[in-house]
């Protein structure tokens, strides 16, 4: 399907077909009392129509909970339904974010056939990973995750990974980076711990200081950027370069108004502004059975996100906020109970933007691109 010049017809839906999980990771933002129900195929079909009736280019991120607990037949059926419903000018891209332990030949072969992009989570070498990504009985999950990752890599060529940075590995980020590179994974993220859900219960054990996270990220940035190796991408650090290069690039957390392009749907068909808000009833925007996409996007619930960087006092005075736009509203809400507050990791954003800006301008000057 050809490209067009419009971005207004695009939307990413973070879909949580189940909140259940076979893991009990210490930092999970889903809490212990998560709803164990699963999305029915009828709700998944209704959601597909809801999305396609509102936008032309849809990206669905199958998230959770653990989305593979839905079984491969669920994805085969909804993929077939998507194909039936795609009319001229419409497009759906499917991505799935899994813990990796349930990946098997049937899943991976289907993902290859249906062009589902796969992301997994691994927090570094076994010793680090097994401290925080555990089964409900406390056993480490490393061996099962690596088996799944190796299988997916062998059949799909590349996958993405997220490594969560906590007190356990904040001073060992170099080991995490080296480990992911050794696994021949080209696409990694080093995401900081958020104290939400079960993570809130383990905050003392896991919490990291935003300034320290900034300092440690700068060390990794210098190593990676200085290596001049473009085939390994640390996405959350590449994001700083991208944002400084062009207003059109950068992740959701640095956009002026992420609501334009994102929403989340849970197993009941309830719609929220983002997956990270989907456990807060006050942010519910509607339901795929009773609302249209226009209804949910014009919901008064969304008004409180409007012009957030300008309305947040600290951001309005900051020389970095034109790039970070105050960061993620969910991070602000998690730590302060307010949307109109800066991201908890504001300090690290500030440090990284200033550091990265200097690096890229120095390089552009040395190569004669700017005077």
């Amino acid at each position, binding site marked *: 399907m050809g*490209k067009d*010049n*419009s*971005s207004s017809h695009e939307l*990413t839906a*973070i879909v949580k077909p189940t909140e259940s999980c076979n893991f009990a990771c210490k930092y999970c933002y889903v809490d212990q009392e998560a709803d164990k129900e699963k999305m029915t195929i009828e709700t998944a079909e209704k959601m597909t129509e809801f999305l396609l009736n509102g936008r032309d280019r849809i990206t669905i*991120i199958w998230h959770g909970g653990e989305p593979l607990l839905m079984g491969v037949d669920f994805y085969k059926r909804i993929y077939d339904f998507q194909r039936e419903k795609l009319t001229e000018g419409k497009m759906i891209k499917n*991505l*799935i*974010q899994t813990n990796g332990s349930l990946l098997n030949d049937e899943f991976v072969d289907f993902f290859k056939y249906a062009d589902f*992009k*796969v*992301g997994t989570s691994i927090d570094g070498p076994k010793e680090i990973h097994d401290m925080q990504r555990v089964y409900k009985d406390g056993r480490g999950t490393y061996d099962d995750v690596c088996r799944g990752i190796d299988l997916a890599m062998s059949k*799909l*060529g*590349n*996958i*993405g*990974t*997220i490594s969560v940075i906590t007190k356990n590995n904040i001073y060992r980020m170099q080991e995490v980076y080296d480990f992911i590179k050794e696994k021949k*994974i*080209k*696409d990694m*993220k080093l*995401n900081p711990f958020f104290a939400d859900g079960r993570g809130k219960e383990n905050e003392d054990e896991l919490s990291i200081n935003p300034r320290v996270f900034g300092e440690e990220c700068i060390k990794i940035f210098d190593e990676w*950027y200085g290596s*001049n*190796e*473009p085939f390994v991408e640390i*996405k959350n650090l590449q994001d700083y*370069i*991208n944002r*400084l*290069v*062009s*207003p*059109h*690039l*950068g*992740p*959701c*957390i640095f956009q002026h108004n*992420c609501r334009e392009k*994102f929403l989340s749907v849970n197993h009941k068909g309830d719609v929220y502004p983002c*997956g990270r808000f989907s456990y807060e009833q006050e942010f519910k925007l509607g339901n795929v059975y009773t609302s249209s996409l226009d209804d949910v996007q014009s919901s008064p619930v969304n008004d409180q996100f409007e012009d957030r960087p300008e309305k947040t006092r600290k951001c309005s005075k900051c*020389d*970095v906020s*034109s790039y970070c736009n105050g960061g*993620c509203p969910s991070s602000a809400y998690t730590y302060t109970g307010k949307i109109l507050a800066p991201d908890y990791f504001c300090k690290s954003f500030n440090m990284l*933007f*200033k550091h990265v*800006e200097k690096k*890229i*301008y120095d*390089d*552009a000057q040395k*190569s*004669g*691109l*700017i005077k």
Partner: protein
Amino acid sequence: MEKTKYLLDKINIDDIPKLDNAILKRALRRAKYEENAHIDWPQAHCNYGDHSDHSNYGDWN
């Protein structure tokens, strides 16, 4: 920080191949491509190995 000034706006895009740093070169090529196509905002809480999506940006080196 230079408020709302983006590197892409300050350079001649024909000069991008002169850059020594391949990581910055890739970012500028993507930016040049994205200006003429759709805007893709990655979701911060997922990572799905989408290198293949960027293969049409051409040679990263």
